[in-house]
C-alpha cells in the first residue's frame, strides 16, 4: 500500500469505523424492537405457543427442518406448514403422530416423538403462530 497511507491512519479507521458501526447497529436494534409489534404476530403468543416452542426446541426439529428458512435442509420448511396443510392444526398433529417408529424404508424419515396430547397441541399452535409472522411474503409459494 502507498506510503502516504500509514499504520496510524489504518488504525484510526479501524477504531473509528468499528465504534461508529457498533453504535449504529445498536440504534437499529432499538428501532427494530420498536417496530416489531407490527410484524411479529406477538398477539398470538400464548402460554401454549411458548410451550410449543419448548417442545420444538427440546426435540430438535430444527436439525432436519427449516423454520422461516433457517435450520437444516433435509426436510420441508415448516414456517408455512399451517398454510400448506389447509390451515388445519389437526392435520399437522395427525402427521406428527403417525410417524412409524422404524421410519419408512428407503425414504427420509421423521422420528416418532411420542408426544403427549398437550405437547402436540402446543406444537401445532406454535406452528400456527409462526405462520402468522409477517415475513415480507416469504416463502415464494406454498411449497416453502
Amino acid at each position: 500500500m502507498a506510503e502516504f497511507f500509514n499504520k496510524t491512519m489504518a488504525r484510526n479507521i479501524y477504531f473509528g469505523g468499528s465504534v461508529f458501526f457498533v453504535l449504529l447497529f445498536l440504534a437499529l436494534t432499538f428501532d427494530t424492537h420498536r417496530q416489531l409489534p407490527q410484524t411479529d404476530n406477538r398477539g398470538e403468543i400464548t402460554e401454549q405457543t411458548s410451550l410449543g416452542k419448548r417442545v420444538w426446541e427440546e426435540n430438535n426439529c430444527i436439525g432436519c427442518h427449516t423454520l422461516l428458512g433457517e435450520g437444516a435442509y433435509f426436510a420441508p420448511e415448516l414456517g408455512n406448514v399451517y398454510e400448506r396443510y389447509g390451515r388445519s392444526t389437526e392435520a399437522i398433529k395427525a402427521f406428527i403422530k403417525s410417524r412409524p417408529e422404524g421410519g419408512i424404508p428407503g425414504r427420509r424419515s421423521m422420528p416418532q416423538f411420542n408426544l403427549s396430547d398437550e405437547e402436540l397441541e402446543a406444537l401445532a399452535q406454535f406452528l400456527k403462530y409462526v405462520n402468522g409472522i409477517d415475513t415480507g411474503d416469504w416463502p415464494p409459494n406454498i411449497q416453502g
Partner: protein
Amino acid sequence: MTYETQAVAKPYFIAAIGLFVAQVLFGLILGMQYVVGDFLFPEIPFNVARMVHTNLLIVWLLFGFMGASYFLVPEEAERELHSPKLAMILFWTFLIAGALTIIGYLFVPYAGLAKMTGNEFLPTMGREFLEQPSITKIGIVIVALGFVYNITMTVLAGRKTVVNVVLITGLVGLAVMFLFSFVNPDNLVLDKYYWWWVVHLWVEGVWELILGSILAYVLIKTTGVDREVVEKWLYVIIAMALITGIIGTGHHYFWIGTPGYWLWLGSIFSALEPIPFFLMTIFAFNMVNQRRRDHPNKAAVLWAMGTGVMAFLGAGVWGFMHTLAPVNYFTHGTQITAAHGHMAFYGAYAMIVMCIISYAMPIMRGRVANGRRAQVVEMWSFWLMTVAMVFITLFLTAAGVLQVWLQRYSDSPQPFMVVQDQIALFYWMREGAGVVFMIGLMLYLISFWVKEPEPVGATA
C-alpha cells in the same frame, strides 16, 4: 521454540485434528442419509448426526484458535505464558465437557438430554449450532473466560504487538457474543434476531479478527516482511471486516419478521463484506512475493495462501451470490446456503487452523520445518481436501439451483420431497467428493508420521 510454555499448544492441536476427523466422518453419514433416507435410522437420525457434525466443527475450531493463541501470544509478547497449568486444566475441562456432550447427543434422545440437564430452568437448547445443553454452554463460557484471562495476563506483562492486541480483541469478542446464546425469548422473531448475534457476528465479525491475526503472524514468520507493513494490512482488513460485517448482519433479517429497511441495509453492507476477504488474499500473495527469506516450511506458506484464496471464494464469492435480498428471496434456506457454508467454513477457518498447525507443530517437535517428504504428503493432503471441497461446493450449488427452480421459481412449484428425489444425483456426487475429502484428511494425518530418508534442515 522460543518459550517453553508455547508447548501447551500441542495437545490443543492434536485434539483439534482428532475432532476434525470425527466431524468429517459424521459429514459422510449425513451425506449418505441425504440419498439413502433410512441409513442408520432410527439409531442415528439425521438431526443427531447433524448436531454432532456442526458442533464438532465449532469445537475443533475453538481448540485450534486456543492452540494458536497459546503458541503465538507468548512469542509475540516475549515472555512465558502466564499460567501453563491453567491452560492444561482448561484443556481437559473443555475436552471432557465436549466429549460428554457428543456422547449425550448420540446415546440419549435429545428430549431426554434436555430433561437430564435441566433445560426447563434455562432453556437454550434446540437451536441450530446452539444445541448444547445449557450446562455445557456455561462450561464453554467458563473455559473461554479462563483462557482469555490467561492470554491477557501474558500480553499485559509483555510486548503488546498489533497481532496480539487484534487476536485478543477477537477472542474477547468471541466470548462476549457467545453470551447471546443464552437469550431465547418465546417470541420467535426476537429469538432469531439474537441468534444471529452469535452466528453471524462470529464468522463475519470477531472471528475475522482471529483469522487476520493468525494469518499476519504466520506471514511475518515465514516471509520476514517488515512488521510495520503487515500491521498496516491487518488494520485495514479488520477495519473493513467490522465496517461491512456488523450492519451486514442485516442479510439475515430479510424474511424473519423484521422491519423492511433491513432489506436495503443488509443487501448493501453485506455486498461489501467480500472486501476484507479479498484484501486477505492480496495480503497473503503480496507478502509472499515480497518475502525477505525463503522459509523451509513450504507447506505452511501454501496453507496461508490457500486460506486467502478459499476464504475469498467461499465467503466472498459464494456469500455474495445469495446476499442481495431479491436473490436471497429464492435461495434462502436451500442447498445454496449449504454450499456457501461449507466452502466458507473450510476456506476461512479450517484452513487457517491447519495453517498455524503446519507452522507450529514442527517447531514444537524440535525442527524449523518438516523434511521434504513429510511436506510433500502434507501438500498432497492440502490439494485433495481443497479440490474436494471445491467439488462439494459445486455439486451443492447445482443441487441448489435446481431446487430453487423446481420448488420456488417455476410456474408449477413442486413439493420439497419430490424435488429432493429429482436432484439426488448431485447428492451422490457430493458424497463422492466427500470421500475424497476424507482421503485427503487421512493423508494429512499420515504426514505427521512420515520419516525422512536422511536428516534434513536446521534444528530449532
